[in-house]
C-alpha cells in the first residue's frame, strides 16, 4: 500500500503525515510539487502548512503546481485524496471540493483541540469510525472558516457530504459548523483539523487521528478506490 504525501514549498506537516501513514502501517511516498507523476501511489494526502506562504489566498498558488494536474486526474478517476488544512484549501481552490476557506471570524490564528462529529463514514478516509462518533483532533489555522453559497450548502447537507462537523462551539465561523466535506463520489475528503497530529500517545491531544489512515488502508485493501492506480 503506497500513500503519497505531497510537499509544496511551504508545506509544514508533510513529515507528520508521512509519519502517520507509516505508524498506521502503509508505505509513505514523498511526492514533490514539481513532479508530473504520482509514482504509483494508491492514495494521496495534501498536507497542512503554508504553501507559498499562503500568500494571495491559501492554496491558490499551490493549485497550479505541476503535481496538482496529476492529483486532479487521479481524484477525478476515484483515487482517495485527503486534504488536511492547507491541503483542504488547495482542494477547494482546485474545485475538487466545493466552497472555500476564509479568515477565521475572530481573525486570529487559533491552535486548539476541537471535538468533531463524524457524520459520513462511507468515505475511504472515515470507514473505521462510527457514524456520529465524536473525536478530538488538533485544529490550527488562521483561515479555517468554511464558506459556500446557500445552494452548495444545501446540496452538501442533502447529499450527506458534510463529513465532519464541529461539536460544541464553532471555532472559526464556518458555515453550518462544517469542519470537512467530500466530493460527490466520496473519494476526495478535506478538513481543517489535523488528524496527523493525533496518532501517537503523548504527542498531540488524542490518537483519534489514526482512524483516517487505518480507514484508507482498509479501503485500499478492500479494493475501493483502486480503479485508477497510476
Amino acid at each position, binding site marked *: 500500500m503506497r500513500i503519497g504525501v505531497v510537499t509544496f514549498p511551504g508545506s509544514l506537516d508533510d513529515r507528520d503525515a508521512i509519519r502517520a501513514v507509516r505508524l498506521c502501517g502503509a508505505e509513505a511516498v514523498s511526492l514533490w510539487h514539481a513532479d508530473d507523476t504520482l509514482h504509483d501511489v494508491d492514495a494521496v494526502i495534501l498536507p497542512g502548512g503554508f504553501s507559498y*506562504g499562503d500568500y494571495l489566498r491559501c492554496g491558490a498558488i499551490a493549485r497550479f503546481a505541476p503535481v496538482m494536474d496529476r492529483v486532479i486526474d487521479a481524484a477525478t478517476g476515484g483515487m482517495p485524496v485527503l486534504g488536511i488544512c492547507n491541503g483542504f484549501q488547495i482542494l477547494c481552490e482546485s474545485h475538487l471540493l466545493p466552497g472555500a476557506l476564509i479568515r477565521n471570524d475572530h481573525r486570529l*490564528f487559533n491552535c486548539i483541540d476541537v471535538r468533531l462529529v463524524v457524520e459520513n463514514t462511507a468515505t475511504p478516509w472515515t470507514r473505521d469510525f462510527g457514524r456520529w462518533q465524536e473525536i478530538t483532533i488538533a485544529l490550527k489555522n488562521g483561515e479555517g472558516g468554511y464558506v459556500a453559497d446557500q445552494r452548495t450548502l444545501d446540496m452538501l447537507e442533502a447529499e450527506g457530504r458534510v463529513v465532519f462537523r464541529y461539536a460544541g462551539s464553532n471555532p472559526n465561523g464556518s458555515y453550518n459548523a462544517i469542519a470537512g466535506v467530500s466530493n460527490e463520489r466520496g473519494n476526495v475528503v478535506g478538513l481543517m483539523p489535523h488528524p*496527523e497530529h493525533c496518532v501517537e500517545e503523548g504527542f498531540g491531544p488524542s490518537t483519534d487521528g489514526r482512524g483516517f489512515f487505518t480507514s484508507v488502508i482498509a479501503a485500499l485493501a478492500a479494493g475501493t478506490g483502486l480503479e485508477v492506480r497510476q
Partner: protein
Amino acid sequence: MSTLDTVAHAAQTPDVEQPWAELGLKSDEYANIREIVGRRPTIAELAMYSVMWSEHCSYKSSKVHFALWGENTTDQMREKLLVGIGENAGVVDIGDGWAVTFKAESHNHPSYVEPYQGAATGVGGIVRDIMSMGARPIAVMDSLRFGNLDHPDTARVLPGVVAGVGGYGNCLGLPNVGGEVVFDDCYQGNPLVNALCVGAMRVEDIHLAKATGVGNHVVLFGAKTGGDGIGGVSVLASETFDEGGPAKRPAVQVGDPFAEKVLIECCLDLYAARVVAGIQDLGGAGLSCATSELASNGEGGMRIELDKVPLRDPSLRPEEILMSESQERMMAIVEPHRLEEFLAITTKWDVEATVLGEVTDTGRLVVTWHGEVIVDVPPRSVAHEGPTYHRPLARPTYLDVLTADDTTDLARPGDHDGAGLRHALLTVLAGPNIADKSWVTDQYDRYVMGNTAMAQPDDAGVVRVDEFTGLGVALATDCNSRFCALDPYDGAQLALSEAYRNVAVSGARPLAVTDCLNFGSPEDPGVMWAFRESVRALAEGCKFLGIPVTGGNVSFYNQTGDVAIHPTPLVGVLGVMQDVSKRPGSGFRTEGEHIYLLGATRDELDGSEWSRVLHGHLGGRPPQVDLAAEMRLAEVLVQGTDKRVFGMAHDLSQGGLAIALAESVLRHGVGAAVSLREVTHIWGVSAFAALFAESTARVLVSVREDHERPLAQLCAANSVPMAHLGTVGRPGSGLVVQDCFEVDLDELQAAHTHTLRAAFAG
C-alpha cells in the same frame, strides 16, 4: 550621478569631513578607524565600522564582563559543550550522536516601532542563527514583556507582537513550546521581545562561521537585498554627493517567513550534500557582519564584488548594501568543485544564489564596486577588535530605601480568615501575570512536526529529538524582574533557579544555559552595576549548578528618559531526557492520588505577586537563593520521572502554593482537597505564608498510593523535605483548602481566564 568614494579617492582626500558622529561613533573611535586603515575611511568603510562597532554588534560595554563566563566554566562543564560562547549559538552534546543548539535574542526596539514586523523578524533572526550551526530548527519560544495591561499602548503593541511571533513561527513550521508574557509598568515604552530557538543535528553535522580554504567561493543566497533597516543611516546619503537627494529607506525590516522556510529546507539539503565549508546568517549589520566575521574567523581574507549582490531596490548605494538588514539571507563558503552541486540544490528550492567573491589569505577584506576598491580593511578590526569600554559602575543608593520598605506592614489575612485568603487567591489568580495566557498561546502552533511532548501551559517545552528512542530536550525561560529590581545578583540567580526547576520538573536533566540580558543605558553607572551583578550571578550560579552558559545576547538602552526598565536578565535552561514520553505534566488527572509539597517554605512575601496585585507594592528582599536545594530537588524530579513515580509535577513560583494548586486543578479540570496543617507545622509559617510565599526550590507533585514509598525514599536520599497536602479530587471538582476555604472549578476558571480575554478579545 554621484561620485564613488573609492579607497584611492579617500587616500587623496584626507581632509573630507565625515559624519562619524551622526553614525554613532565617538571621536576616538573615528580616530582609531583612521589609524587602522591608515587614511580616512571610505564611506563604505565608515558604514561598516559604524554598524559593527555599535553597541548591538560589538558588545563594547558588556564585553569586559564576559570574562566571567570563561572564569566560571570548569572542565567538567565543558565536557558536553561542543561549541561554546563566540559562535552564532552554542552546541551541546545530548548523547546518542545528537547535538542541540539553542539561543535567545532580543528584538525589543523594532517591536515597539512596528510590533508585527519587529517580532516576526526577531523570530526569523534567531532561527537563522540556529540554522547557521548546521541544525534543523525544532522549536521556538518567546518571552514577552509589556507595560500595564490597561495602558492603550499595550493594546497597540501586544496583539501585533503576538501576531508577529505567531505569523512567522507558524509559517516556518516550528512549534512554539513556551515563553512568558509579563506586564509591568517598567516596560511601558520599552516592551521586551526575546525569542529563543532550539535546533538539533547529528554531532558530525556541526557547521561553523569560518571562511577557510583560499580560493573557495563566497556565495550569498536567499532573498534579494533591499533597503531594510537602514533608515537610521540615511545620513550617509548626504555624503555621497547625490543630486536627487536620498531615496526613502525603511527603518523597519519586513519578514517573509515563506522565504525563510524554503531557506531552511534548502540549507538542510546543502548540509546533507556536504557542499558547505562555512556558513553565516545575515542578521544585524547584514553583509558587513557576515563578510567580516567569516573572514576574521577563517583564513583572514576575502574579496567581494559588491555589485553582484542581487537587489530588490536598484537605487541602493554600495554602503547601503553593506549595511542592509534585509531578512532571509545566508552566506556560504563553497569549495570550487562543490559549486555546481550547491547551485543545483538552491535551484531546486528556487532560492537565488550568487557567487560574490572568494576567500583569500591576504589578511584584508576587500570590497569592490564595478571594479573599483571601496573597502580594504583588516576584517578582525571590523568584527572582533572594536572598542571596549570599562564603564563606571555604582550601586544605586535608592536600593537601601527599597530594601527597607519590606512587606511586614502590609495587611495579611489571618489564619482563620478563610474569606480573606480565598479573596487573595482569586485576585492573584486573575492578576495579569498569573492569568491564563491562552489568548496569546492559542495563536501559536505547538503541534507542528509532531514531536511536542509538552508545551504551554506546562512548565517547560519538551520536544522529541530522536523519533526512534524518544530522546529529547526540555526548555524553559524565566526572569522575575521584580526580584532583580530588589537585588540584581539574587534576582538573576532566582531567574536561573526558576528556569532550572522548570526543566527539572518536566523530568529533564538540566544541561546548559542561554541568556538574554535586557537592561537600561550602559552609560548609567547604576544600570551598569546591575548588569555586572547579573552576569556575575549567572556565571557563578551556573558554575555551582555545573551547567555552562553557551551563548546569549545583550540589549541595552531599554529606557525612557533616565528611567530604565528593571534589570531583566532572561535565562533559558535546556535539559535532556532519555524518553520524553515519560514527562509527568503539570495538572491533576487521577482522582485519589496523593499530593505532596517538596521543599522548604519560609515567610517570603517581599516582591511577591501577592504584594504586587493586592498592594501595588515592591520592596524588601527577594526570596532566599538556594541552588544546592534546587540541585537536590532536581535529582528527585529527574529520577522520579524516569521511574514514573509522579502522576503530575508542577513547580511553585509566582503566587506560591496557592497558585500552583489552582493551576494544577485548572489544567485538566480535576480538583483537589488539601490541608495546610503539615506545611504550617513543619515550617512554622502562617496559613497565609504557606499559600502565598514565593520560597524557591519547591514543587507540587501527586503520586499514586503505591508510589508514596518510593517518593519518600527518593526525597530522603536527596534530603528534600516533603509535606503531605491531600488528595486529587473528582474531574469537575474545585479546590478545597480544609479549614480555610473552597472554590469551585467554574469560579477558578472565570478568575483565571477572564483577564486577558477581556483586554484583547474583539
